[in-house]
């Protein structure tokens, strides 16, 4: 067994602070996505509500915004925010800040579309039968519309969160030291002494991403089943 561990380069994990460094990298990836999620959810709710508003101009502007964000690969957005703005506007923002901005822009757009979908999926009859029972507009929203919207929204937004966590692996391209970057550094440093280090370290990265996203994904499935 110890041979296999060495063979696959897993032993490198236990050298020095390597494993702790990987966890630190995971944390910086998670914190970028979690901050972005925390910004995206309130902004996305506002955007979703505005997307169902009667004003055609507001709807058109938000639609264009959503489409642009969707069409652009996240990597292009990251480069544009990190390198592009430095040249064009002279902004000197850190890789982390640029990442958070890009992920928040993306998250807001996707979240807005989810909120819009959840709101328009509540049939008009739900409003009417609630009002016919003598409920005021506020009571209708509080007891009938919002609970149903949230039930539809939570599984979908959890999936969005796992997508955002996974996509943070791109931020190493703009110099943010996240888990994949740390993995590369460890592999570089140990290539000579243990040639198979890449396998062991990337396997660990896989397991770390899995452990971060799987419980979230399970929660989404559970809620979806419970509220179907």
């Amino acid at each position: 067994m110890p041979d296999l561990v060495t063979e696959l380069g897993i032993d490198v994990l236990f050298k020095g602070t390597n494993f702790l460094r990987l966890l630190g990298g995971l944390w910086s990836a998670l914190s970028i996505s979690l901050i972005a999620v925390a910004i995206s959810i309130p902004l996305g709710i506002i955007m979703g509500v505005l997307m169902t508003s009667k004003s055609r101009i507001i709807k058109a502007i938000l639609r264009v915004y959503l489409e642009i964000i969707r069409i652009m690969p996240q990597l292009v957005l990251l480069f544009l925010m990190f390198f592009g703005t430095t040249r064009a506007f002279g902004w000197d923002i850190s890789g982390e800040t640029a990442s958070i901005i890009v992920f928040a822009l993306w998250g807001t757009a996707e979240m807005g579309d989810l909120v819009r979908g959840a709101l328009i999926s509540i049939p008009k009859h739900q409003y009417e039968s609630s009002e016919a029972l003598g409920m005021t507009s506020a009571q209708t929203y509080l007891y009938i519309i919002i609970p149903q919207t949230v039930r539809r929204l939570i599984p979908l937004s959890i999936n969005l969160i796992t997508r955002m966590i996974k996509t943070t692996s791109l931020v190493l391209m703009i110099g943010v030291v996240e888990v994949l970057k740390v993995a590369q550094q460890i592999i570089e440093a140990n290539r000579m002494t243990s040639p198979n280090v890449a396998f062991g370290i990337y396997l660990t990265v896989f397991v770390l991403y899995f452990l971060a996203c799987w419980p979230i994904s399970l929660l989404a499935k559970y809620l979806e089943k419970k509220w179907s």
Partner: protein
Amino acid sequence: MSDELLKIDNLVKSFDGNTILDGVSLSVKKSEVVVIIGPSGCGKSTLLRCINALEPIQSGSITLDGEVIERNSKTLPALRQRIGMVFQSYDLFPHLSVLDNIVLAPCKVQKRNRDEAKQEAMALLERVGLSEKAKSYPRELSGGQKQRVAIVRALCMHPEILLFDEVTAALDPEMVREVLDVMLDLAKQGRTMLIVTHEMQFARAIADRIIFLDNGKIVEEAKPDEFFDNPKTERAKQFLNMFEFDSVKARDGLDK
């Protein structure tokens, strides 16, 4: 006429330039069962929806016991509590159990004691044969069961008048009966009801008065036996004929 509960006076409703209700006047007395029939698109459902102020109206007035029912007025939620409405598509709240569907409005709107409301809901469910479904969710019920729950939900608010908007139109034929039986039972209890339906036999059995509506106008108004056996207007005759079929057995003779 002090026993007039609901009074509709010269109601006009139009939508996108089409007149849907064209000067409808109608009154319903306490404990009276009035059935509105007519071809589809004649404005029957719209009339019921106007009574509950779910549709804006252009002119005329609707009063319940002398109080004007008006959209966007402050008294509307209070008036709506006194009018029970059951819709074609049941419209139960899917995220609440049967019992919570029923007691939500009594507790939140009328601020009644939850246990007392639950007791009443259970007694009403028992009466429509659904007490064992109290903890189920709407998605677990058949159409007929959902519609019976919707009726109980309306009843639990102690409405003075009940509006039924084609409540059996979306049901499979074998489920129509169980819902109609509940309504017949309500009529026996002396409830005031205004019913829109396509079930002619049922209309005849339950109605104190039939209103025949066509093109947004009341064309004929009569006692049920009189209306079904001797309709006075040509339009009503034509309409009733649609429910009759001429025998085609005569073709047997062709074989010979």
